[in-house]
C-alpha cells in the first residue's frame, strides 16, 4: 500500500505507479502486447514458410516427374531458332543466352523510343484538350475516350492488321522521296554509317551544343538585350554553324548513308523498321499518349488561374506563359503519375507477342517451349521486368526530386 507522501499530488502519482507495477506483474505473458506481437509474427512466418514449402515440394516433384529442367544451364546451349529482328547480330547457332539478350534489347528499344514519342504526343493532345478552339478540344476528347476505353491488345492487333498489314506486297512497294520504301514487310530507310572522320566531327558537334547552351543562358547578360528571341536565335546559329564548319574541316564526310537497294524479293542494306516493330511502337505510343494527355491536363488544370492572369498582366505571350509559368509548375503534379505511365508502357510492351514482334516475353516463350525449362525462363523474364520497373522508378524519383526543389 501507498505511503503518505509530503504532498497529495506526489502521493497519488506514486499510488498510480505502484498499482500499474502490480498490475503489470499480474498480467499473464500471453496477454502482453509485445509478446503477442512476437508470437503472431512467428506464427505468420511459420504459415508462410509452410505454404511456400508445400508449393515448393509439389513443384519439385512435378518438375522431376515431367523431366523439366530447373537450372539455368540451358542458357549456354545452341538455340536453333530464328529471331525476326534484333539490335545485335544473331544466328540460330547462337546460344539461348544471346537469344534472351536479343529479346531484352528489342523490349528496351521499343520501350525507350515509345516513352519519348508517347510523351511528345501526350503533351500535344493534353494541351489540345485544353484548347480554347472548340473543334480541337473536342477532337482531343474523342481521341482520349476511344483510346482509354478500348483494350490495348485490340488496338495493337488492329493497327498491325488494319494499317501495316494493308500496305502493298513487296512487288508493289511504295516509294517516298529520300530513298524511303514501305511495303508489307516494313519501312526501309537509309542507314547512317559512320566513316573514320566521324569521331573528330563528333567533337565539333559536342562543342556546338555546349556553346549553344552557354550562349542561350548567358547571352542576355553578354549583349545586354532584353529580347526573348535573340538568345534563342544566337544559340540555334551556334548549334548549326559549328558542326557545319566541322563537316568541312574534317575532310571526308563523317557520315554516309547506306541506301536500301531493291532486289527481286527483298531489300538489301539500309535500316529496316519491320511492320511488327512499327505496329507495336505505334500502338504503345497512341495508347500511352491518351493516358499521358489526361495526366498533362490534370497537371495544367491544377495551376491556379491567378498565375496565368499575373503572367498576362506582365505582358508575356501565350507561348511564354506555357513555357515559363505553366509547365514548370505543372511538372510537380505531372511527374509521379507520368512515371507510372512510363512503367505501364514498358510492361505493356510484352503484348508485342500477340503480333509476333520478338520482344523479351515472346523470345522467352519460345525458349520455354523448346528447352523444357519453363520455370527458370519465366523467372528470368519476371526478374528482368521487375529490374526495369525498379530502375525506371529510381530515375523518375530522382527527376521528381529535382522538379520539386525548383518550387522553393
Amino acid at each position, binding site marked *: 500500500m501507498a505511503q503518505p507522501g509530503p504532498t497529495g499530488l506526489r502521493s497519488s502519482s506514486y499510488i498510480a505507479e505502484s498499482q500499474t507495477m502490480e498490475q503489470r506483474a499480474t498480467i499473464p505473458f500471453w496477454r502482453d502486447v509485445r509478446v503477442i*506481437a512476437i508470437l*503472431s*509474427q512467428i506464427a*505468420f*512466418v511459420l504459415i*508462410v514458410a509452410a505454404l511456400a514449402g508445400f*508449393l515448393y515440394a*509439389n*513443384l519439385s*516433384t*512435378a*518438375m522431376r*516427374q*515431367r523431366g*523439366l529442367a530447373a537450372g539455368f544451364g540451358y542458357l549456354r546451349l545452341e538455340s536453333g531458332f530464328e529471331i525476326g529482328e534484333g539490335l545485335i547480330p544473331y544466328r540460330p547457332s547462337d546460344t539461348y543466352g544471346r537469344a534472351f539478350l536479343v529479346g531484352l534489347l528489342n523490349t528496351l528499344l521499343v520501350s525507350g523510343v515509345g516513352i519519348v514519342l508517347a510523351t511528345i504526343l501526350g503533351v500535344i493532345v493534353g494541351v489540345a484538350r485544353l*484548347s*480554347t*478552339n*472548340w*473543334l*480541337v478540344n473536342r*477532337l482531343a476528347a474523342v481521341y482520349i*475516350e*476511344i483510346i*482509354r*476505353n*478500348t*483494350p*490495348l*491488345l*485490340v*488496338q495493337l*492487333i*488492329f493497327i498491325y*492488321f*488494319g494499317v501495316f*498489314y494493308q500496305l502493298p506486297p513487296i512487288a508493289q512497294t511504295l516509294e517516298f522521296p529520300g530513298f524511303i520504301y514501305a511495303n508489307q514487310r516494313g519501312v526501309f530507310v537509309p542507314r547512317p554509317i559512320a566513316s573514320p572522320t566521324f569521331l573528330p566531327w563528333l567533337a565539333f558537334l559536342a562543342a556546338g551544343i555546349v556553346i549553344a547552351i552557354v550562349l542561350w543562358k548567358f547571352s542576355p547578360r553578354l549583349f545586354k538585350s532584353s529580347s526573348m528571341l535573340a538568345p534563342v536565335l544566337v544559340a540555334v546559329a551556334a548549334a548549326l554553324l559549328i558542326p557545319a564548319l566541322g563537316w568541312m574541316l574534317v575532310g571526308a564526310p563523317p557520315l554516309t548513308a547506306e541506301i536500301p537497294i531493291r532486289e527481286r524479293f527483298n531489300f538489301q542494306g539500309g535500316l529496316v523498321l519491320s511492320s511488327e516493330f512499327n505496329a507495336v511502337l505505334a500502338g504503345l505510343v497512341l495508347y500511352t499518349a491518351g493516358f499521358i494527355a489526361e495526366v498533362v491536363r490534370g497537371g495544367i488544370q491544377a495551376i491556379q488561374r491567378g498565375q496565368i492572369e499575373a503572367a498576362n498582366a506582365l505582358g508575356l505571350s501565350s507561348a511564354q506563359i506555357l513555357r515559363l509559368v505553366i509547365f514548370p509548375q505543372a511538372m510537380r503534379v505531372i511527374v509521379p503519375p507520368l512515371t507510372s505511365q512510363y*512503367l505501364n508502357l514498358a*510492361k*505493356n510492351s*510484352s*503484348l508485342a*507477342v*500477340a503480333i509476333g514482334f520478338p520482344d523479351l*516475353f515472346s523470345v522467352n*516463350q519460345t525458349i*520455354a517451349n523448346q528447352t523444357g525449362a*519453363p*520455370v527458370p525462363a*519465366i523467372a528470368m*523474364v*519476371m526478374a528482368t*521486368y*521487375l529490374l526495369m*520497373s*525498379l530502375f525506371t522508378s529510381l530515375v523518375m524519383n530522382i527527376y521528381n526530386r529535382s522538379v520539386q526543389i525548383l518550387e522553393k
Partner: protein
Amino acid sequence: MTIDTDTLGPPPLSVGVLGWLRKNLFSTWYNALLTLASLWLIYTVSSQMLVWAVTSARWGVITTNLRLFMIGPFPPDQAWRVWVCVVMASLLLGLSAGVWRGTVRNLAAGLAATYAVMTLLPFEADTRIWHIVNLVAMVGGFALGLGRSKWGRWVLVAWLVAFILAMIVLQGFRGNPWLPEAGSNLWGGLLLTFMLSLVSIIASFPIGVLLALGRRSRLRTVSIFSTLYIEVIRGVPLVTILYMMQIMLPLFLPGEVRIPNVIRAIVGMTLFTAAYVAENVRGGLQAIPPGQIEAAQAVGLNNALTMLLIVLPQALRMVIPTNVGLFISLFKDTTLVMIVGLLDVLGVGRSVLAQPDWLGRQTEVYLFVAAIFFVFSYTMSYASYRLETTLGVGKR
C-alpha cells in the same frame, strides 16, 4: 422613330452562331488554321470510313458469328442458361433503378432502350423472345422497387446471391438431365470476358484489403511480406503472370488436382488485381484522419473493432470510384487471356478469322471487338464519374 443609342444591340459578330464561331473556332489566325486542319482531318477520316463501311466491308462476318462472339463454344442448346443469368441481371437492374435514383436509373433506361431496339432488329425468333423477356423483367423490377428506398441493402444482397446463382446455373451438375455440366472450359466470348473480370475483381477484393492492412501493419514481418508481394506483382506485366499460371499452377499443386485453363487465368488475374486493390485501399486508409482512430480508442474499441467499425467502412467507401476504374482496366485486360489460348471476345475474333469464308476480314472483326469494349468501358466510366460526384469523394 429615332434610334435609341442606349439600347443598340451588340455587334452582330459577337452574338449568335457567328459570334460563337468567331469566339470558339476563329479567334486568332492560328486558331482558324487549326480549325481548318481539324475539319479536313474529320472529313478525310469519316468519309473514308463511311465509304469503306458501306461498300467494301462485309459485316456478315459479325452477324453470322454473333453467337460465337457472345458465348463462344458454349453448347447452343444450353444457351438459355446464359439468357437466364442475363434476365436475372435485368430484373435486378430494374429493381435497383426503382429503389435508387440517379445514375442507376439512367443506366437502366439506356439498357431498356437497347432491348427495345433489339427486339425490332432481325434476330432469330428465340433471341427476340429473350429480349422481350429481359425488357419485361426490367420493367417489372422497376415497378416493384419504385419508391421502396428501404430495400437498398437487400438489393445489394440480392445482387450477390444472383451472382452465385448465375455461377451455379452456368456450371451445372454432372449427370443432371436438366442442368448438365457445362464447365468453365466451355465458356467463351463475351460470357468469358464477363466471368473473368467479375470473378477476379470479387475474389481479389478481400485479398487486396488484407494486403493493404498488412502493409500498414506494425508487425514487421507482415508488412515486409505484403510490401514485397505488392511491389513484385506491380512490377511485372500481367501477361507474364497469366503465362506463369498456365504453366506453373498445375506444378504447384499436388499431381492429382486438375485445373481448367479458365480457372488458371482467373487465379492469375485475381493475384494480379489484388496488388492494385491493395494500393487503392491503402490510399483510402491513409486518408482517414487519425482523430477517428483516437476517438475509437477513447470509446474503448480494441484494434480489430476500430479497423472493422470505424476505419474500413470509411476507407472502402472512399475508394469505390478508384476501384471502378480498376475494374474497367481489368475488364479490358481480360483480352490478354487470348495470348494464353482462351476464347474470350478477342480470341473468338481470331478464331473466326481462321474460317476460310472470312479470311482477311480483320478490320471488321477487330472494329466490332473494340466497339463492344468501348460501349461497356465508356458506360462504366460514366457511371464511376457520376458515382464520384454522388459520393462526394475528392470534394473538400
